[in-house]
């Protein structure tokens, strides 16, 4: 269903509450799920992180790979989903951010990424940039998708959800959490975009082709996935390489590439499923 975004306000939404969501059900239909650069430290320990091109814009997006065809999530099918940290992008619905004016989005993203860069600068060169005072509430508004199934707008669900507002009419922890999640998500997106523009300009992206023969001897040619080419990285001119190191991007690339080891695990998991299926058939 098409999203219908409106700003959250006490007057209209004082009775609203958020219903518990089953993200596993949602994830089970997804073979790729977007992740942000601020999630990869944890994520890279559990599943492969690759790049795909958006069918709408052709621009690269960073995604976690959970299956080899549309609609297939091997982690869910193998009942391993609950053992891994789930990508943040599954968690924000029905909340979304809206921006007050042109330029607001850019200002907000700059604000979010600045703190990360300052932290990195502190650890590498001890240079600390002073963060100018910035008030996000001038730029950003919290919205909900009125069409979302996770909303309870009139207490029909026996007040089982988390209310938006406290009895003293102040925003509840539910709204505060939503804001935090959205800020982290937006930060991740902004960091990914910055990283990507650097990587793309250095032409470090390479297509990843997977030719897999499954347990049942069927074959799959998986294309449309991309990774960062470590060979090209080593061929960079010293200045460009030093620049990547200074921005912490070489570490990022190592994390991303280390996650590719999980592809083998994903293949194994799927083969186990195929085998189990074959056994059932032969019974």
């Amino acid at each position, binding site marked *: 269903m098409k999203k219908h975004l409106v700003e959250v306000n006490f007057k209209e939404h004082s009775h609203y509450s958020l219903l518990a969501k089953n993200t596993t059900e949602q994830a089970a239909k997804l073979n790729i799920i977007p992740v942000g650069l601020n999630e990869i430290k944890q994520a890279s320990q559990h599943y492969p992180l690759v790049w795909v*091109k*958006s*069918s*709408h*814009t*052709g*621009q*690269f997006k960073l995604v976690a790979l959970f299956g080899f065809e549309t609609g297939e999530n091997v982690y869910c099918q193998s009942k391993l989903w609950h053992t891994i940290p789930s990508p943040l992008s599954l968690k924000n619905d029905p909340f979304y951010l809206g921006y007050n004016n042109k330029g607001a989005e850019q200002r907000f993203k700059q604000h979010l990424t600045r703190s990360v860069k300052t932290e990195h600068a502190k650890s590498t060169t001890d240079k600390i940039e002073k963060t100018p005072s910035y008030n996000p509430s001038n730029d950003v508004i919290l919205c909900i998708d009125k069409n979302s199934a996770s909303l309870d707008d009139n207490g029909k669900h026996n007040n089982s959800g988390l209310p938006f507002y406290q009895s003293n009419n102040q925003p509840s922890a539910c709204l505060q959490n939503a804001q935090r999640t959205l800020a982290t998500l937006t930060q991740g997106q902004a960091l990914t975009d910055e990283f990507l523009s650097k990587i*793309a300009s250095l*032409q470090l*992206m*390479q*297509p990843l082709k997977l030719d897999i023969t499954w347990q049942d001897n069927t074959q799959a040619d998986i294309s*449309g996935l*991309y990774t960062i080419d470590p060979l090209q990285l080593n061929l960079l001119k010293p200045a460009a390489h030093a620049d990547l190191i200074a921005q912490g991007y070489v570490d990022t690339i190592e994390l991303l590439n280390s996650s590719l080891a999980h592809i083998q695990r994903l293949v194994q998991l799927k083969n186990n499923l195929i085998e189990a299926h074959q056994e059932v058939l032969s019974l």
Partner: protein
Amino acid sequence: MMNKATKSIVIVGGGTAGWLIAGRIAAQHKSNTKEGVQVTLIESANKSPINVGEGTWPTMRTTLKKIGISESDFIRECCVSFKQGAKFAGWVNGAKDDFYYHPLVLPQSYPSINLAPYWQNDPLQNANSFSNSVCYQEQLCQLGLAPKLITCAEFTGIANYAYHLDSAKFAVFLQKHCTKKLGIKHVIDDVIAVNPLENGDIGSLTTSNSGHIAADLFVDCSGFSAILLAKHYKSAFVDKSDVLFVNQALAVQLPYQDEADDIASHTISTAQDAGWIWDIGLPSRRGIGYVYSDNHQNEDQAIERLAGYVGKDFDKLTIKKIPINSGHRKVFWKNNCVAVGLASGFLEPLEASSLVLVEMSADMIADQLPANRQMMDIIAKRFNETFTYRWQSIIDFLKLHYILSARNEAFWRDNRQTSSIPESLQELMQLWQYHSPYDHDFNHRNEVFPAASYQYILYGMGFKTDYQLQSSSFNQQEFARQQFTKNQQLTTKACQLLPKNRELLAKISQYGFQCA
């Protein structure tokens, strides 16, 4: 002297031909390094280039890649749209439903099977056009669809494709790339004298303000005037106006009625009583032109035909007149001077042969750049043989479009006179009475058109080959049927998958293709 290494090249002419040659040589021979071959391009301060070519071949993708150009930049800056072949309307009899396609995608499973005989002998198939039976691209063109997706990498596509472009912008774009990235020296000045050496080679050129410019090899890209090859060396011109009759062109640029109008994904060539009209869709405008024979029609009548095609806005447009002197130089490479582009010859733009010949020349010069003066004569001999053959093949192929017509106007009747048909083409036509064009007819390593192109024209225009004498040799019926089915499936799939030409071009201008 004979062992002097080729270290410096001067190109005369700053049109698309000059810059393409310069770019190809400079990129391959590292002109931006000390050890590389030094390339200087002299562009006339007074004469503006003709820049006629608005249609390319798929080869342009490789050429641009070799020069180190980004496809997204090229598309954005040169007002580029995609070209997936040509639609010929009215060439057979001029009726409303008379049209056929010459697409860029080869017939299904070519060359592992020649589908032409199976198509003609199968009533289920030949109810459909030859191109529709064996290739999915005609449908893409009819629907105005693009050959690729925004997720495709630069220079790769779902369907084979070439470009339509604004050639004046293309020359400027190439110039910028060549001077900024490839280390080509750009001199804006006029050549006023050619200074020969004792052996007849060109030693240097004298310019109005930049003194003498010496080089080991000179490339003449000076357009129709061919100031080095024709004016200095007096290389003879081989006139082909007795084969190809059109000798005038009237060109206009027509804005779209509506910004959202479809951009045609192919060149449209519509036959007229004394020639034909080209129609090329760029993102910002259409380029339309009437090429005709002034021996069959006067200019006023020709303008009337063009006005009839363009419609109500014709009066507001400026008409550019270009004479077409069909033919080419007898010798293209003489001593240390080689002519490329209009300086080497010109033919009507029916199959967009102008830029492709420049690319082929650039390939041969860059790939086989003579190491020293001694080698140059051998390479020059090869070059002359190769390009004499290529021009002849193109002339034959162009003429083929005319001799298969059944139109009854004098221009078309005269075109079918045996005396106007080259013997090489007459011979091929005799062969094709009994077998369809295939690779054994074109086994030269320097072929321009594949046999598939001849098939598209012959069978698109209703030519029938008599297969009866060899009917026993068609024993791949089942495999052929599978290929026809496969093509149908691909057609459906490609039509669902691919976006509108204009939609993709808009996305490219917003996002570009991300490199991998």
